[in-house]
């Protein structure tokens, strides 16, 4: 236990010193594993012998071989093959110009309300999230699409940035979702059910975000003046133009729900559908296809460097008895499983200030699943709770990746302004989290209907 805590401390130090996360985890995990491996059988890792410093070569070799095996296993793990495919689908969809049409359609319906353009942004983010598995892609795309028109109507920059950054998180709440895939793999939970479980909480968050906008513009009407009213025939025409998004969503989620194909296969089918759609609209040249593929490959590569490190580090703390220790500690508290889930949420909120969503899930889910599963906690429900909580980390300072993305895309807005605009949405998300904690049905009712 003490060894694990030292390991965590060293890891955090390296992290704040700017060492890439994957390498920091890898080196600390390697040294820690070797130390514990020697210690477990009553030996020292390094000792002072007759010939000077002596290294325990068996423990060191064991640790080295473990790292090689884990790296190889991670990159060739069947369950992970869905990750590059969902990323590729998002990359293709971003290039198919769908976001503009979603935004126009959403605004046709809500744009004329006070704060309506921001609400339209949130709704369009949700629609885009239904065909894209990453929150950063949604935030980046919607920044380009929604920011210019909100500025035209003199929306407050903070409110606009907040709406886009928060709306971006819908990308991983509404299926498909790469973090949910990773959660499903690590917690050995049905990915199809997780996807379906995300639909209602996603809609709930969309409503809460709109509420946050209504509240902000009620207090400060000058921050979000109403836009132009769209006549009904025009609204329907705009709505009809988003059929592509609906079709792709129905193919993916309907196919999973109806048992036509598995989530892994749905990713491959989704890529094909997205590609066909982009081609049909004349948006897919060889150049853009090539760019989408490279972007996907590099993002996948970066995810896996972290997962190499995380699995090596996890093996170290596992051998050092940390997992068992933490679970004994939590059980020793003699609080209900709900209390433990709330404790975990608090841990995530603190971690979320610094870590990004995927690193957090990769680092913690194996440990938390080992604790919660034996207590009979519904792991689908906990998955939704975990995704909402790590989502908050995407928009909270000091490291809120979605906010960074919005700033990077728009350019002339200060981080201070953006983070100030985000607070009402953080509050809305906290409310959403509390609702899902109190009423687990929000997450569990739809997967329950799947009858399997």
């Amino acid at each position, binding site marked *: 236990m003490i060894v694990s805590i030292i390991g965590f401390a060293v890891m955090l130090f390296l*992290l*704040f010193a*700017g*060492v*890439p*996360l*994957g*390498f920091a985890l*890898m*080196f600390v995990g390697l040294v820690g594993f070797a130390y514990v491996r020697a210690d477990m059988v009553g030996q020292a890792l390094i000792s002072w012998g007759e010939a000077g410093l002596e290294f325990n070569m068996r423990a060191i070799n064991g640790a080295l*071989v473990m*790292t*090689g*095996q884990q*790296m*190889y296993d991670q*990159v*060739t*793990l*069947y369950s*992970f*093959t869905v990750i*590059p*495919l969902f990323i*590729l689908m998002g990359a293709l969809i971003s290039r198919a110009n769908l976001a503009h049409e979603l935004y126009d359609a959403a605004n046709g319906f809500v744009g004329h309300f006070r704060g309506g353009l921001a609400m339209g942004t949130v709704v369009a983010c949700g629609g885009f999230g239904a065909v894209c598995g*990453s*929150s*950063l892609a949604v935030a980046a795309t919607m920044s380009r699409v929604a920011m210019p028109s909100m500025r035209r109507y003199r929306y407050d920059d903070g409110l606009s940035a907040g709406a886009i950054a928060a709306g971006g998180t819908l990308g991983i709440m509404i299926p498909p979702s*790469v*973090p949910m895939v990773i959660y499903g793999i690590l917690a050995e939970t049905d990915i199809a059910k997780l996807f379906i479980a995300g639909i209602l909480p996603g809609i709930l968050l969309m409503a809460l975000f709109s509420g946050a906008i209504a509240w902000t513009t009620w207090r400060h009407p000058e921050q979000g003046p109403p836009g132009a009213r769209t006549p009904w025939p025009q609204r329907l025409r705009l709505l009809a133009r988003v059929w592509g998004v609906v079709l792709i969503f129905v193919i993916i989620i309907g196919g999973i729900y109806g048992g*036509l*194909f598995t989530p892994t*296969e749905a*990713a*491959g*089918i989704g*890529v*094909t559908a997205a590609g066909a759609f982009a081609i049909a609209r004349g948006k897919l040249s060889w150049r853009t296809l*090539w760019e989408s*593929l*490279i972007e*996907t*490959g*590099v*993002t*996948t*590569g*970066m*995810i*896996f*460097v*972290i997962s190499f490190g995380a699995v090596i580090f996890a093996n170290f703390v596992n051998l050092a008895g940390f997992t068992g220790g933490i679970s004994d500690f939590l059980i020793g508290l003699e609080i209900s499983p709900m209390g433990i889930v709330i404790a975990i949420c608090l841990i995530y909120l603190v971690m979320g200030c*610094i870590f*990004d*969503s995927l*690193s957090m899930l990769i680092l913690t889910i194996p440990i938390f699943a080992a604790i919660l599963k034996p207590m009979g906690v519904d792991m689908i429900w906990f998955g939704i709770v975990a995704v909402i909580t790590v989502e908050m980390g995407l928009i909270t300072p000091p*490291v809120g*990746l979605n906010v*960074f*993305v919005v700033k990077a895309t728009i350019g002339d807005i200060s981080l201070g302004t953006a983070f100030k605009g985000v607070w009402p949405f953080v509050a809305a998300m906290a409310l959403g989290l509390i609702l899902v904690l109190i009423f687990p049905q929000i997450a569990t009712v739809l997967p329950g209907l799947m009858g399997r």
Partner: protein
Amino acid sequence: MARLWSGIERGLELVICLSLIAMVALTVLDVVGRYFFNAPLSGGYEISEILMGLTVFAALPLASRAESHLAIGLLTDRLTGNARRWHRIVILVISTAGLGFIGWRMTVQAGIMYSSMASTGSLRLPLWPVAGAMAILGWLSCLVTAVLLARALAGLDRDLHAAKGSLE
């Protein structure tokens, strides 16, 4: 030097593109074969697994060249001048070591897989060449980072920040 790298870059991009396209094609053929021809690609998933491994490792040199391994710049982004330069050098040393470590361990892993004749369960494809290719790509990433390090030590690229990528 620049021409050599751009040639390597094209090659790696080609590996990534072909692997990803093949992964999509294998999945679609499996589904289509199952429903329309009663003949799924039995064991096709094993090829997908291998292709994913190749994608990840072919992306490593590209990510290394762009210094985009995910890091937290919370405290270190504010460094300027010499402090920034030396910080970047230290991070490059660590990254070079990390990538060299990956290359080395995949080399050993290839050896272990060769001697234990490890193969996939269904198609019985030998796995050591896969680990071998990963080893080569790992060493290439190490080399790329080492070149960046040498340039930094020679006083070039002074304005650059140390690694800071973003995920998802």
